[in-house]
């Protein structure tokens, strides 16, 4: 069973008299554990696709099955639960809450989910350590560098141990070196089995993914093909 199954997805936006087909008849399957880069020119529908995958948006037509379950028909609250437990977001502009410290920002998904404070503290401490943010726990976002901010955002995206991480141009606001660091972090997560979908304009970064999707005008222009995850698993020694 594929982690993600999109069939005949349509997403239209009405702009005055004209209808923009942000996604048009999109079919796509992504297996659990894949590392997918989504590329394509500006306005080709990459962000729209990612929002849809993250249940932030609903298609006008078509079905979206996540882990075998049709999620397009879920109620808003059920979708919120799926976002909370199964999906992590990483944004180009970090989207940290400015008045909260790094630790509090990382804890935010758990706070929203009602995780007890003691458990939150423990998990945040581990995440801070994993992402090299130990001595930045009490810093506000404006006291952090861009790379540190994105690391806080990635720590926040993983804190609920989601199956799927969606990153929309995660290195778009970073210089080459820190961008590299962030990509390494994301790839390390993927190596531990988390499915990773990254939107990027950087061909170099796109090439590092095992699978490249190129979009144009709301359609898949090319797909480097589904790698056989079971074989990949055997090669890298994972069960």
């Amino acid at each position: 069973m594929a982690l993600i199954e999109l069939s005949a997805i349509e997403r239209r936006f009405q702009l005055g008299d004209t209808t923009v087909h942000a996604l048009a008849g999109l079919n796509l399957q992504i297996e659990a554990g894949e590392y997918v880069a989504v590329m394509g020119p500006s306005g080709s529908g990459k962000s729209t696709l990612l929002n849809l995958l993250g249940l932030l948006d609903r298609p006008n037509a078509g079905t979206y099955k996540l882990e075998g379950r049709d999620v397009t028909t879920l109620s808003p609250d059920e979708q919120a639960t799926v976002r909370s437990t199964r999906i992590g977001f990483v944004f180009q502009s970090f989207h940290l809450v400015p008045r909260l410290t790094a630790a509090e920002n990382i804890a935010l998904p758990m706070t929203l989910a009602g995780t007890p404070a003691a458990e939150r503290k423990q998990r945040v401490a581990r995440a801070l350590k994993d992402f090299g943010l130990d001595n930045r726990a009490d810093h506000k976002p404006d006291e952090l560098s861009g790379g540190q901010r994105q690391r806080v955002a990635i720590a926040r995206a993983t804190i609920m141990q989601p199956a799927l991480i969606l990153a929309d141009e995660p290195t778009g606001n970073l210089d080459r070196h820190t961008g590299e660091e962030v990509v390494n972090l994301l790839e390390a997560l993927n190596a531990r089995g988390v499915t990773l979908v990254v939107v990027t304009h950087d061909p170099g970064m796109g090439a590092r993914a095992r699978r490249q999707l190129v979009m144009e005008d709301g359609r898949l222009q090319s797909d480097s093909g589904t790698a056989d995850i079971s074989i990949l698993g055997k090669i890298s020694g994972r069960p």
Partner: protein
Amino acid sequence: MRLTDTLRFARDAAAGTPLRTALSVLAMSIGVAAVVILTALGDGARRYVVGQFSSLGTNLVIVLPGRSGTGGFNPANAITSTPRDLTIDDAASLKRLPGVRRVAPLAVGSSEISFGGKLREIMVAGSTAEFIPIRNFELAQGQGLPEEDWNRGSSVAVIGAKIRSELFGSNPAIGQLIRVGDRRLRVVGVLKSTGQGLGMNTDELVIVPVSLAQSLFNSNTLFRIMVEASNRETIPSAKAQTLATLKQRHRGEEDVTVITQDAVLATFDRLLGTLTLGVAGIAAISLAVAGILVMNVMLVAVTQRTGEIGLLKALGATARTIRLAFLAEAAMLSAVGAVVGYLLGQLGAFALRQFFPVFPAYPPDWAVIAGLSTALVTGLLFGVMPARRAARLDPVQALMKR
């Protein structure tokens, strides 16, 4: 989201925009403070007047000459246009009525007092020995008027504290001969200083026997007759008997008005109580205004934090969580405003009491409770709309806003 987390989140959000938060807290606190101070004023006025009336004496029945306008049409009155005057004998006739403890006739007028070359205008009250106990006056020195025949007053006077100090300074006053009008009177007593009260200022009063006062003013009439009932229960019967007796003495004409202190007191109590309520209502309007301000502040907060709301949704917050977070913030603003306003109001009432010690400016409990709960309810009520707007935001649109 857990309740404590929701509250902490709301608190941090409010603290994140100090100026806006301070303004809405201020507006709310001004509303509550207005309720507390204005009702303290209103209720203070009520207490003050009631207190003053009580200090007139206890269980008083007061007779005024002339019929009060509210009594309805009386053919007897219509024919005899001038009402019969109240006389000393009228007063004396009330002494033996059952249920009556004491009676004091009262004639008042102004005159001049002089001693040792010093001269000044004064109020003269002509009455009897009973007057001082009925009115709860206290003597600082000497004694009151002597018990004697009401129609043959001796040449004595009881003087107020201010008159004593002005005429005699530090010299003894008791036993001195003073001149009042064209009479020479001996000072037998000095009243304790009471300050300004309702009606007479006793500090500038000279009390003389009633018949002496009448001849001083060259009249036979009384200003009032004060009747003290033996206790609270006998007030109505004392009133009825007084009226019946005087009517009989005045050939069946009801040409006097008899009021009881209780009735006057109750009227003022009700009147000023209503006034306080009205004032509280006006002050409550400022609370509604404050509520609208809180709503606006929250609407601005929703607009400013649109990106954050989108993020919260992306991180799995339900609409309910977001609603509660914003509602908690609104409630917090108004709760803090209410508490600050309560303290400000109590401080204001305290200051009032310091500046006007005679004025018991305490806010009534009902006003404090109503003010605080109105503040909280309006804050919550006006917080609902912004909170719902926040919860309804489309996450994709919200995330695009920065």
